[in-house]
């Protein structure tokens, strides 16, 4: 048993080494390195920012990393498409296929090669970007508040979208408002989707309150950042005039008050020093007993102070637009987590390309891969507009099932959104990272591997003559 495993590992490693050598000794990799070097070295110096540290960070973390990752995605996809297809097309595979190597060993060996190459390239890209962040911080003497950070995000305590959907359905039943001819499952799904992006309206003079429970208690003295983004009914830019009050349940009777005067659609952020809850400093707080100990439960209120006759009603998506940010590790660790998320996505693309490569010739595989990638990205919007009424015909039902499946799979694949987190200074949580790696780097590749190996076992590795 041990001997069989060792021999199998040697075969896989042999295939990996060959694929790495093949990649490194082609001009394609040189071109890719030049592109990445231009992207990391030149792009941040060419794109004009707004001159603020925040703007520069945005260019480095969103544009530079985004472009580099995009290039790596396409390169990985096309390289994966070439790995089997080119070998089979040129009949080189016929020499390897007569050796005692299983289809799975070929597949895994080539996939590992792409994982290794991607790890090296991602490391170089992220190191280049990090070096530029350090250099700018040093050269321009950014203040502590401007430096990139990693903060835990806590959303308000609300019922889950599913719970909210059930409550809404119950209310609809009581009022006899349930749509006719639709299954309860379909109604619940629609309600759940709506709950996720639901806006709540705050009219002038009204006040709303949100409760927060931090995942990890906060030591006193640590800063808490409040972030709220408002919108209006027609997404027009309006003035936000109001008062935010942050209180802590562990320090009752004490609040920190901040007046907001900015525009809608901007992320309004302010930092609260938690010592204010016990010492009376910061804002117009009142003294209370209970100093010392960890802080975990917070309450945020917002009072719309606009003129009831002139000001617009403000809209907030409670599940997305309101958050408390607390310190959550170092920026470097967050950068490493973002790189891991990207690595997982590249692993998924590599698996996808390899399986196509096992099925088709190189041009066909590359074309199909690119088209499917674009369709997957566009298909999300298609899946969103499909309604349950369309499911009357079996073809439609199949279409809905496929588009929803692709939609769900791609949503999970993209869920971690590392660049958004990095630019907003939000910590990529271990759970999100783990889920992303498990989904993109293990489960979906396993499905693709199974399909690819099935094809490889059945495909003829030579042609006539």
């Amino acid at each position, binding site marked *: 048993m041990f001997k069989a495993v060792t021999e199998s590992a040697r075969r896989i490693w042999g295939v990996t080494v060959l694929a790495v050598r093949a990649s490194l000794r082609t001009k394609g990799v040189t071109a890719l390195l030049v592109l990445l070097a231009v992207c990391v070295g030149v792009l941040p110096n060419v794109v004009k920012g707004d001159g603020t540290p925040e703007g520069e960070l945005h260019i480095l973390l969103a544009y530079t990393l985004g472009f580099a990752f995009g290039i790596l995605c396409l390169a990985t996809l096309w390289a994966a498409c070439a790995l089997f297809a080119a070998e089979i097309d040129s009949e080189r595979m016929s*020499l390897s296929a007569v*050796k005692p190597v299983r289809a799975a060993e070929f597949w895994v060996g080539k996939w590992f090669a792409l994982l290794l190459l991607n790890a090296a390239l991602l490391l170089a890209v992220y190191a280049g970007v990090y070096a530029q962040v350090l250099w700018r911080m040093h050269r321009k003497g950014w203040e502590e508040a401007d430096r990139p950070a990693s903060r835990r995000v806590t959303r308000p305590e609300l019922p889950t979208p599913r719970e909210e959907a059930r409550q809404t359905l119950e209310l609809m039943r009581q009022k006899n408002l349930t749509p006719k001819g639709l299954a309860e499952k379909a109604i619940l799904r629609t309600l759940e989707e709506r709950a996720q992006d639901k806006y709540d309206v705050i009219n002038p003079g009204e006040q709303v309150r949100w409760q927060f429970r931090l995942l990890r208690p906060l030591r006193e003295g640590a800063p808490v950042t409040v972030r709220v983004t408002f919108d209006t009914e027609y997404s027009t830019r309006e003035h936000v005039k109001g008062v935010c009050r942050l209180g802590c349940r562990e320090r009752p009777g004490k609040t920190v008050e901040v007046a907001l005067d900015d525009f809608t659609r901007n992320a309004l952020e302010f930092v609260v020093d938690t010592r204010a809850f016990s010492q009376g400093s910061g804002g117009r707080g009142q003294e209370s007993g209970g100093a010392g100990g960890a802080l975990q439960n917070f309450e945020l209120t917002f009072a719309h102070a606009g003129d009831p006759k002139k000001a617009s009603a403000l809209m907030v998506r409670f599940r997305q637009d309101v958050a408390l940010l607390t310190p959550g590790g170092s920026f470097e660790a967050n950068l490493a987590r973002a790189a891991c998320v990207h690595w997982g996505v590249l692993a998924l693309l590599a698996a996808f390309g390899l399986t196509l490569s096992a099925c088709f010739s190189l041009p066909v595989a590359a074309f199909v891969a690119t088209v499917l990638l674009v369709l997957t990205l566009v298909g999300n919007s298609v899946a969103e507009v499909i309604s349950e009424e369309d499911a009357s015909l079996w073809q439609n039902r199949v279409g809905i099932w496929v588009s929803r499946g692709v939609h769900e799979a791609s949503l999970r694949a993209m869920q971690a959104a590392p660049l958004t987190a990095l630019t907003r200074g939000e910590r990529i949580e271990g759970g999100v990272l783990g889920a992303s790696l498990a989904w993109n780097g293990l489960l979906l590749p396993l499905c693709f591997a199974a399909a690819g190996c099935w094809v490889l076992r059945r495909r003829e590795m030579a042609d006539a003559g």
Partner: protein
Amino acid sequence: MEVEKVIETRGLRKTFRDFWRRPTVEAVKGLDFSVRQGEVFGMLGPNGSGKSTTLKMLLGLLHPTKGEIRVLGAAPSDTRVKARIGYLPEVSHLHPFLTPRETLMYYASLFGMAHGEAVRRTAELLSMVDLTQAADRAVGRFSKGMARRVGLAQALVNAPELLILDEPTSGLDPIGCREVKDLVCLLAKSGVTVLMTSHLLSDVEDVCDRVAILDRGALRAEGKIADLLRKPEAVRFLIEGLSSEAVAALRSEIEERAGCRVQLDYPAMSLESFFLQVVAQDGRLRTFEMAPFLRATQGTREGEGGACSKL
């Protein structure tokens, strides 16, 4: 005792189809043949006769449309069988960016060989095919003959029990051809079963014990070369140093006594023999020294030189 059959096919058929699954060519039509352990079996036939297709089916690279194949007692797709086979395709199909050393190390790794063992075998094989000096140059820059040597070395890296060679002398100069034929004979003597295809009749005649002749996908003849070529009604005397008078006298004597026609013939060297004799004067002709690991893993079949005894 019956000799074990290393390869056996029954009713083997292969029909190539187009994209729409419509049959285009019937390359092999109900082929039945077997190769016995330890013999050098030649498959002869003109271009398009189905030789390479048959080999590819024996190797599991193509799937038969109908019929049965047993190689070393199992189906060709069985990885345990593949571990005991060496294969040299008609065109070597090597990775052009790899050096011969890397190429052999790669194929050794596909057999699950330990690194040390792979390094040793690679060095021995490179020495055997006389490529030690060029071991670290990219194969893509090699001449066809040199690439063929690398191809041959990779086919032997696992010390195979069955060696399948598709046109092994294709693209080689007469010296290279001779070396390959010598090697086939050496391997055959050490107990390796060899199946080779060729459309060069002299190659097959020089090394093969038995042959099968294929034409348009069907088996036309099969058997030992000596049996196939024998003319029982004719007798040949080879006499050296006779004067023309003595020849004339002998001829009339035989015709008179036996009452049959005598055909006179002055045997010449084959062009290949003459060429090799000329080249040998420069010391360029060498014989493959079997890699020690091949000698150690194979047995011997002394006294069964077969066709090889002619070389």
